[in-house]
């Protein structure tokens, strides 16, 4: 119990320091950008805006003040939980992010579970029968997927299933003309199908290769050889001995890959015009929406950090050896 409190305390302190560092660095980056937020926001309509109107907008957003002063205001609000107002959505940044995050959450959660389960199964199979035809097939698939861009997989799936076969919709997270709460769960799932498959197909690669390595290691270990000497079959060794030793690193890896999952979601959402947090990131970057962009940077950092911490925590919780090491060092 005491260890858990200590663990949480340490992690929270680290997170606070990390957030502070990321906030300072990303603020320095965006305030050095030659892109003028007012110009980027107005786009082609900038020609219709008089210099006075421009000044009013600049004043309202506070972009006419020097960077240090802006940073202090922004950081002061940030500490109070206020991320500012998004320029392109004209809503508080936190509202935009939370709404978008829920939409993205289902996409990421489904893809994360599928790729984890499938990748683990494929890795086990490939590792257990190392060098067999099925191992070679799985390996070729995983290595090819590791060098394939996510968005291209999305484009090909979109082309085959939405354009040629018309089985799946071509865009969005719910039927056009409806709002999020009007759509039924089946309509939502129907729209989720292709993005989830895209992310899963790519996400499988890493976990498969990793699990395969670990399985081969386990199959050559003393306990596996001993079990074989006692007459255990390959499947038996895999299910009774290897799985337990391979599962932990796989779970850890899956939790530690939330950053890549987020990146994949950005690309997949762009292909399928899925209105999630990833698409908001692209819109914020192209539209010059500084408060939203900074907000997303911070929130996604917390997201990745949480994943890594959960991975650490599971390690300590499940593996008694780790707990002992942690206990003796304290």
């Amino acid at each position: 119990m005491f260890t858990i409190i200590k663990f949480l305390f340490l992690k929270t302190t680290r997170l606070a320091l990390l957030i502070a560092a990321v906030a300072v660095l990303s603020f320095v980056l965006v305030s050095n950008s030659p892109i003028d937020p007012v110009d980027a926001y107005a786009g082609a309509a900038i020609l219709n805006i008089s210099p006075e109107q421009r000044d009013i907008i600049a004043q309202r957003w506070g972009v006419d003040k020097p960077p240090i002063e802006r940073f202090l205001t922004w950081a002061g609000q940030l500490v109070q939980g206020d991320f500012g107002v998004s320029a392109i959505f004209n809503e508080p940044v936190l509202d935009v992010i939370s709404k978008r995050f829920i939409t993205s959450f289902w996409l990421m959660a489904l893809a994360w579970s599928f790729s984890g389960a499938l990748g683990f199964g494929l890795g086990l199979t490939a590792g257990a029968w190392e060098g067999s035809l099925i191992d070679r097939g799985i390996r070729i698939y995983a290595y090819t997927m590791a060098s394939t861009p996510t968005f291209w997989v999305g484009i090909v799936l979109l082309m085959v299933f939405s354009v040629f076969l018309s089985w799946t919709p071509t865009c969005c997270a719910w039927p056009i003309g409806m709002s999020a709460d009007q759509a039924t769960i089946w309509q939502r799932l129907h729209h989720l199908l292709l993005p989830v498959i895209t992310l899963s197909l790519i996400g499988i690669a890493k976990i498969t290769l990793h699990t395969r390595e670990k399985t081969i290691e386990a199959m050559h270990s003393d306990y596996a050889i001993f079990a074989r000497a006692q007459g255990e079959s390959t499947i038996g060794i895999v299910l009774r001995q290897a799985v337990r030793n391979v599962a932990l690193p796989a779970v850890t890896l899956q939790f530690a890959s939330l950053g890549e999952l987020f990146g994949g979601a950005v690309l997949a959402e762009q292909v399928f015009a899925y209105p999630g947090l990833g698409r908001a990131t692209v819109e914020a970057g192209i539209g010059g929406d500084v408060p939203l962009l900074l907000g997303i940077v911070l929130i996604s950092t917390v997201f990745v950090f949480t994943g890594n911490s959960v991975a650490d925590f599971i390690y300590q919780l499940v593996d008694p050896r780790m707990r002992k090491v942690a206990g003796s060092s304290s």
Partner: protein
Amino acid sequence: MTTNLFSRSTPWDLRTRTLMTILACITFFAVIFISAWLYGEQGQVTNLGLRKLPPSWERPFGTDWLGRDMLARTLKGLRLSLSVGLTAAACSAFIALLFGLAAAMLGRTVDLIVTWLVDVGMAVPHLVLLILISFACGGGAKGVIIAVAASHWPSLTRVIRAEILQLRSADYIKLSRQFGKGPYWIARRHLLPHVIPQFVVGMLLLFPHTILHAAGLTFLGFGMSPHTPAIGVLLAESMRYLSMGLWWLAVAPGIALIVSVKVFDMLGNNFRALLDPRTSQE
């Protein structure tokens, strides 16, 4: 696993086969660059009489909505994307070398700063970091290169730093210090020869990542305009014609990109096998 292009049935030993694989990979890139150069302006020429032709023997990649030959455009896009990826990977690798050396050699404070920078660099999702930096640089091709170059060093820095830290406690380095050699002499004569192969392999293995990330960034609309047809731009444009059934606009450039990335990966792995003393004599 090191992919080797040549099977065991050839009369060569593994070392020769690895060398031949490396040669084949380099030839592949030479062909891309030379043919992109030979095509000259042909990729940009619009020919409205030849619009939207599906792939055929004369035009293996088909033509687009303005009658431009897609093979020429793909080659040019590939050349552009590969150049961006190469430049960015080289920059990233140099940053990693400098930071890794500094962290391991210049004392505890510098080490703390560098490891902390590595942690911060890896804390933000990579694509979000890329978008942030490319925004900070004002977009454009320059923005893409800087973003990709400035975000790929953390993992290699870790590798190089760990390598040097391990070397520093080696007996012969300690002895060298006992003999009164200064840190710069040791760095140049003892450490660099060890680290350079790591650095070369690390740089080669960065290429696939930088190329894919540069393509991803341009696909999202950061940086390159339609006038600079990087492979990401070609794929982003193809999305607009998908509903009209022009499938070849997306398929061919995509496969060309995957093959290039895969060839780079193979190049890096074969180099590693050759440079690593444990595997070079097999």
